[in-house]
């Protein structure tokens, strides 16, 4: 573990995909004597935060792939970053106030023209010297809320609500197979917190035993330039999962993969039951028609055997043979009755791993 310690000036991490915004924050924070590290994506930030801690982190809220909300949750929920103060810097600070407060950052600063934003940042930094507030403080002096941003936030929340209410586990991966998004069902499926999953390799984070299989599927799907899907079935701890992979192409550029994971154990069991029912229906149908076809000749044989018995009553040897014929025909008749009474599909061992239908247990007509 290469843990970086603040040396002299307090360390600050600035995360924003907008280079201009990063430059502005860097200028303001450097002039205040902070040691500033800048990264330009949520993923870069996560990689850095896995082995480095900072005193302060300035986070843009809206970034492609991994937004500031996820990084904020990662920092505030991760024990190793317990001392870190997160400052959300957002163009939607006023409009998204409630949502941002739920992320539990130290403060939220509205993006604004440089001079206004600088004043708000300095004011926010000043609060670090006094008694620390229990909840998020908003710094947005000189900034007006925008109805447009409200609309955008509403739309974003709408999709988040849909994704979080899905029964299927949804993962988003970048082109290297790194997890950049998980929904609620995905967190429950793996029994982990969001901050433990984001930034992890999907194949390792999901299931070590199937890592190679998942890697091959991901590699295959990422290498194609067109949108395509791929499926994988995995057995994990006596349950069966279906993984549907689909690559994501935006503006002609491959940006990653979505993986939708379904627990198909119950579905497979139902499928097996359905097969069994179909098999049973076939057996019953066959048994009934065989019984029906056999019944007529058996009745004829039985009748003739009875006549024969009467006609050879004086010849003991002949009479014995006619009786055997009669008794065996009667036995066959009882068996055909049992065939026509088959209502379930029970089998019994017949040696050499063979199974045959157990007539006694399968038929509702008992052989008396």
């Amino acid at each position, binding site marked *: 573990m290469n843990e970086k310690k603040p040396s002299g000036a307090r360390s600050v991490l600035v995360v924003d995909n*907008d*280079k*201009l*915004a990063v*430059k*502005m924050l860097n*200028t303001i924070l450097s002039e205040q004597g902070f040691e500033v590290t800048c990264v330009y994506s949520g993923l870069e930030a996560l990689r850095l935060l896995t082995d480095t801690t900072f005193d302060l982190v300035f986070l843009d809220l809206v970034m492609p792939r991994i937004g500031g909300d996820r990084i904020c949750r990662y920092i505030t929920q991760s024990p190793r970053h317990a001392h870190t103060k997160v400052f959300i810097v957002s*163009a939607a600070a006023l409009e998204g106030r409630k949502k941002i407060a739920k992320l539990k950052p130290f403060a939220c600063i509205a*993006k*604004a*023209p*440089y*001079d206004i*934003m*600088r004043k708000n940042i300095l004011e926010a930094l000043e609060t670090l010297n006094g008694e620390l507030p229990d909840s998020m403080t908003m710094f947005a002096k000189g900034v007006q809320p925008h109805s*447009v941003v409200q609309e955008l936030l509403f739309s974003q929340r709408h999709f988040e609500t849909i994704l979080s209410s899905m029964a299927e586990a949804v993962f988003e991966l970048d082109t290297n197979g790194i997890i950049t998004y998980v929904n609620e069902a995905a967190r429950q499926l793996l029994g982990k917190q969001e901050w433990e999953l984001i930034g992890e390799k999907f194949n390792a984070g999901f299931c070590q035993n199937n890592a190679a299989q998942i890697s091959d599927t991901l590699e295959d799907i990422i290498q194609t330039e067109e949108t395509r899907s791929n499926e994988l079935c995995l057995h994990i701890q006596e349950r069966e999962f279906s993984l549907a992979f689909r690559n994501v192409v935006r503006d002609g550029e491959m940006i990653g993969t979505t993986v939708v994971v379904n627990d198909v154990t119950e579905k497979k069991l139902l499928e097996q039951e359905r097969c069994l029912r179909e098999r049973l229906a076939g057996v019953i149908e066959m048994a009934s028609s065989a019984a029906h076809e056999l019944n007529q000749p058996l009745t004829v044989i039985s009748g003739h055997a009875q006549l024969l018995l009467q006609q050879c009553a004086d010849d003991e040897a002949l009479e014995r043979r006619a009786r055997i014929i009669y008794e065996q025909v009667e036995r066959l008749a009882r068996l055909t009755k049992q065939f026509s009474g088959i209502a379930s599909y029970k089998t019994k061992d017949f040696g050499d791993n063979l199974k045959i239908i157990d007539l006694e247990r399968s038929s509702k007509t008992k052989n008396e």
Partner: protein
Amino acid sequence: MNLTQLGESLGLDKNEYIEMIDLFFESGDADLKKLNAAVAAGDAARAYEASHSLKGSSGSLGLTLIYELAVRIDDRVRVGNLDGVAAMIKDLSKEYEKLVVAANDFNK
């Protein structure tokens, strides 16, 4: 266009301000290109992405004329209306070009 004065009005020295203007050009060039292409293709949603980005970055640096034109375009394309947007983009491009010239003069 006096970039030194603009920078000072924001509390930035001229070198810091020109560095930021250069970064503005990095995204601004791409945004303008995207905006033109989107309007030509009748893609208001994509045009909105570009105008929104231009609006934010120009506003941050106090580039009022570019900002105001970007706001006008933004208001229109956001609701899917591309009428007259091509002409607005021409005006915006002219102001943008003036800024490029001013930045070049500044760097000389």
